């Protein structure tokens, strides 16, 4: 047992060694990696956990989360496949290096007859020419094809050998080393120590996105002298920051920067069509003592670099614009519209009602396709400008919430103008859009009054017949819009009915409309520190160069042995092989055979 165990263990090790460097494993790993990569393209990666939970339901959400499907390329199993591929490639290189180096450095002119015959292409012929003449013929033929043949005479035999593409094997080293280098540098850039700390539990991503900076627990802070990071920070115009945030799972980590970034201003340049042409942040970098380190513009495709870190224009949002709004209470007749003022990001109390309103996400322009508003194609004017928009969330006293999106500019359809208001009761669900008709003086107060009057009438026992609907509207219009022509009134009633049906599930008792605003941008800047970058560049150069050498500088070897024939003339053995472009080489070899045979026949 002891002996057989000793006998078997090295062979097992060798088997493993062979398996790791084997081509079959490499091809299978390449295909496996390709298939595994598909997952992350089918499902959008790194969205919020709540939106995944909404889509899959609680059970499947947890299963997929445990499999790491929401961030496939950072899971241990995916990294494991990549790591295994790199390991297998490294084994392959280690195993092949001595043999290939020997092959590059050594090229014997003399070759045994058996070895010449064993080449992929082989010919044997008898020539009337004496050995020196046939040798000269062969040498000039090979030279004509760009070979530099060498000759050696030993024991009355004449040997000729030539090869091309001696450095073809370099291509093998370059490509495979490049893969290892690129993967290694990418792992380095992916900040392995931080991932490790995260995995060990010494670094814990914070999941509360509303915490002020000083209150973020220390366990979510990455070290100041972190080797590599890629985080971003959203800065309102005029603000300064010295940290960036890196997303991790469903939370984030904080990275302290060696400088402070101050955003002087942000602006968007537009083409004449209204399409954005450029996003530009004007920033200043300050040192710890307040000295100016660098200042300038950060634009898309034009990052700013400072001392190994790069600052990119990544996105933009609202930086706390001042909004002035009017609020319309639904169902209370003849109430003047209330006024509300607040900054984006603030939460306002709606009087003493117990309702509160959070203002979010002001957007300057909304140029959208017509089809997304009403589902119809409008040839000639495919897009419509809905003007500025903002989103507000209403929290009810009972603890419920609804989210609303409101556009400032009206749309026009069949001579009637409408305000578009979107609402949804659940975050992540699609908005329901309602088109509220405007009265002849603009604004939605006519609609709100009509709605209130109708509710009152219906509560008073009236039936919602068309006659009643029209009659109630006429009463309202007499006060609010006495000059409105009857056909307009009919249209208005029809459109109001439509809007009221759409508002069936409206989750708040009031509507907010934007009346004016003072805009303030915020720019999202991404800050990265990737010392592995230069290594990746060189790895890429090596990869491309290696592929070129492998496919376009193939190695071709030719060996010949000439000897005097005792019966007169001479005999030639010629063998050759190529490791790429074999078809071409076989044609060449056929041509050589013809050429050399012709030479024999002429004499």
């Amino acid at each position, binding site marked *: 047992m002891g002996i057989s165990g000793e006998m078997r263990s090295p062979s097992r090790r060798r088997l493993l060694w062979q398996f790791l460097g084997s081509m079959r494993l490499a091809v299978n790993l390449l295909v496996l990696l390709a298939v595994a990569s598909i997952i992350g393209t089918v499902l959008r990666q790194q969205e919020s956990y709540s939106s995944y939970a909404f889509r899959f339901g609680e059970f499947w959400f947890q299963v997929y989360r445990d499999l790491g499907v929401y961030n496939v390329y950072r899971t241990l199993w995916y990294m494991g496949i990549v790591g295994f591929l790199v390991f297998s490639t490294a084994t392959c290189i280690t195993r092949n290096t001595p043999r290939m180096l020997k092959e590059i450095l050594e090229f014997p002119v003399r070759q045994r007859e058996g070895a010449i015959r064993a080449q992929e292409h082989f010919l044997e012929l008898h020539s009337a020419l004496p050995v020196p003449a046939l040798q000269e013929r062969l040498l000039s033929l090979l030279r004509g094809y760009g070979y530099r043949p060498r000759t050696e005479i030993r024991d009355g035999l004449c040997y000729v050998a030539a090869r091309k593409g001696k450095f073809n094997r370099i291509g093998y080293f370059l490509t495979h080393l490049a893969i290892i280098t690129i993967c290694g540098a990418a792992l380095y850039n992916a900040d392995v120590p931080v991932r490790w700390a995260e995995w060990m539990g010494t670094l814990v991503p914070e999941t509360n996105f509303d915490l002020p900076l000083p209150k973020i627990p220390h366990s979510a802070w990455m070290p100041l002298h972190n080797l590599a990071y890629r985080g971003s920070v959203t800065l309102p115009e005029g603000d300064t920051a010295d940290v960036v945030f890196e997303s991790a799972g469903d939370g984030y980590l904080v990275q302290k920067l060696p400088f402070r970034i101050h955003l002087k201003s942000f602006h968007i340049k537009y*083409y004449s*069509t209204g399409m954005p042409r450029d996003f530009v942040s004007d920033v200043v970098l300050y040192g710890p003592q307040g000295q100016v380190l660098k200042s300038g513009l950060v634009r898309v495709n034009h990052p700013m670099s400072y001392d190994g870190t790069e600052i990119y224009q990544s996105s933009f949002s609202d930086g706390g614009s001042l909004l002035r709004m009017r609020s319309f209470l639904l169902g209370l007749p003849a109430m003047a519209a209330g006024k509300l003022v607040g900054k984006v990001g603030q939460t306002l109390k709606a009087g003493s009602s117990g309702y509160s309103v959070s203002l979010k996400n002001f957007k300057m322009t909304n140029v959208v396709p017509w089809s997304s508003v009403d589902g119809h194609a409008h040839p000639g004017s495919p897009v419509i400008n809905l003007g500025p928009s903002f989103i507000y969330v209403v929290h009810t006293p009972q603890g419920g919430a609804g989210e609303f999106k409101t556009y400032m500019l009206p749309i026009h359809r069949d001579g009637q103008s409408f305000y578009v208001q979107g609402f949804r009761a659940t975050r992540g669900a699609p908005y329901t859009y309602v088109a509220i008709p405007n009265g002849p003086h603009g604004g939605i107060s006519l609609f709100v009054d009509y709605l209130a009057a109708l509710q009152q009438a219906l509560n008073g026992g009236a039936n919602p017949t068309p006659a009643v609907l029209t009659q109630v509207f006429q009463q309202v219009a007499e006060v609010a819009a006495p000059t409105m022509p009857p056909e307009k009134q009919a249209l208005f009633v029809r459109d109001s009915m439509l809007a009221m049906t759409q508002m069936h599930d409206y989750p708040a008792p009031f509507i907010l409309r934007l009346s004016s605003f003072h805009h303030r941008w915020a720019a999202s800047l991404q800050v990265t520190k990737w010392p592995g970058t230069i290594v*990746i560049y060189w790895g890429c150069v090596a990869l491309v160069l290696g592929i070129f050498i492998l496919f376009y500088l193939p190695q071709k070897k030719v060996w010949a042995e000439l000897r005097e024939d005792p019966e007169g003339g001479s005999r030639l053995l010629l063998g050759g092989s190529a490791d790429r472009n074999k078809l071409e080489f076989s044609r060449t070899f056929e041509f050589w055979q013809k050429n050399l045979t012709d030479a024999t026949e002429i004499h």
Partner: protein
Amino acid sequence: MANSRAEIWAPELPYASRTWRDTITRSAPWAIALTAATAFIVFQYGAQFGIWKYTVLICWYLALLVAGSLWRSIQWAVPAVVIPALAAVWMYSAGQTPENSWILRYFLQGLAAVLWMGGLLLLATAAYVLHVLMKNETVGRWATRLTWAGTLMGFIGLGVRWRETYIGHPSWGHIPVSNLWEVFVLFCASTSLFYLYYEQRYRARALGAFVMPLVASAVGFLLWLTFAQHMDRIEPLIPALQSFWMKLHVPMMFVGYANFTVASLVGLAYLLTKRSAVRGGTLSKMMPAPEIMDDVMYKAIAFGFLFFTTATILGAVWAAKAWGGFWSWDPKETWALIVWLNYAGYLHARVVKGWRGTNMAWWSFMSIWVVTFCFLGVNLFLSGLHSYGKL
């Protein structure tokens, strides 16, 4: 291996295996002409050039020099594209427009030239199919000529359109590879061009009956984009695309796509020919020998792989400049990786394991689904950073 096709191929041999020195001596006139043209550009416009424009110029100079030396048809094809395109540019600068000049309206305007390309390539496809069905050499010669004409019109169209993007709004100007319509023109023209190379190099005209139908369906899609989606309209570039990297990244990508497409359809030709031979059909009489088709597949994939790798790397470098990361696992990037892994697997199996024959033809043929999904499917079905390619 003394069959008739091998003999047709054999006279090509000394040319095929000639040395670098021969190649250089033979293409001296081409090199001189190209150098003169480049020198003219540098002296005429060099004052406005930055380092990137010089980079692009040098890349084009070297690419055309090498291409013209290895494939002599390039030597007349380049002037055949450049001269009409420059003529159109001159006509525009002389104040002519498609409205008042019938030459521009019907021939040289970007859209007109592209429609010519589409028509000619459709005719060429029909001619290739007829060539194989009727076993008629004359029809075959016309098929090749029509393909050449269509390819040249496609490149003329792209060249003129490049100028047209500047007309009326100079800030919009860009190389016409920025939306689905433009890259489809590039795809049709470059696939045809590389197909012509393999046809000429291997004297394998019957392959056209398999390669060109795919180009024809791409033309069909292009016509649908033109007339139903009006995607031929010139639009300005979104900020992320305003980079000189686009001039290198996208054209190189299409060298890859074109070669992969040719390889996969030659794979189909291989499979059908084998099948026909087994069943005693006559298809194999017209088709090149299986080992030649096998070699075309391998050559096209190796060449495509070199360019696809380079283009993907350039894309990653561009992403690093524009978005701050080489690799964001965006669907397009991931699918490019999948295509790369697929062909890396193919090349390992073919070169190292020495696999040949039907299995490799299947691999090559089935890869077209992966390539098509990367090229088109990602833009149609998935969202991500490359979403400007959307319909």
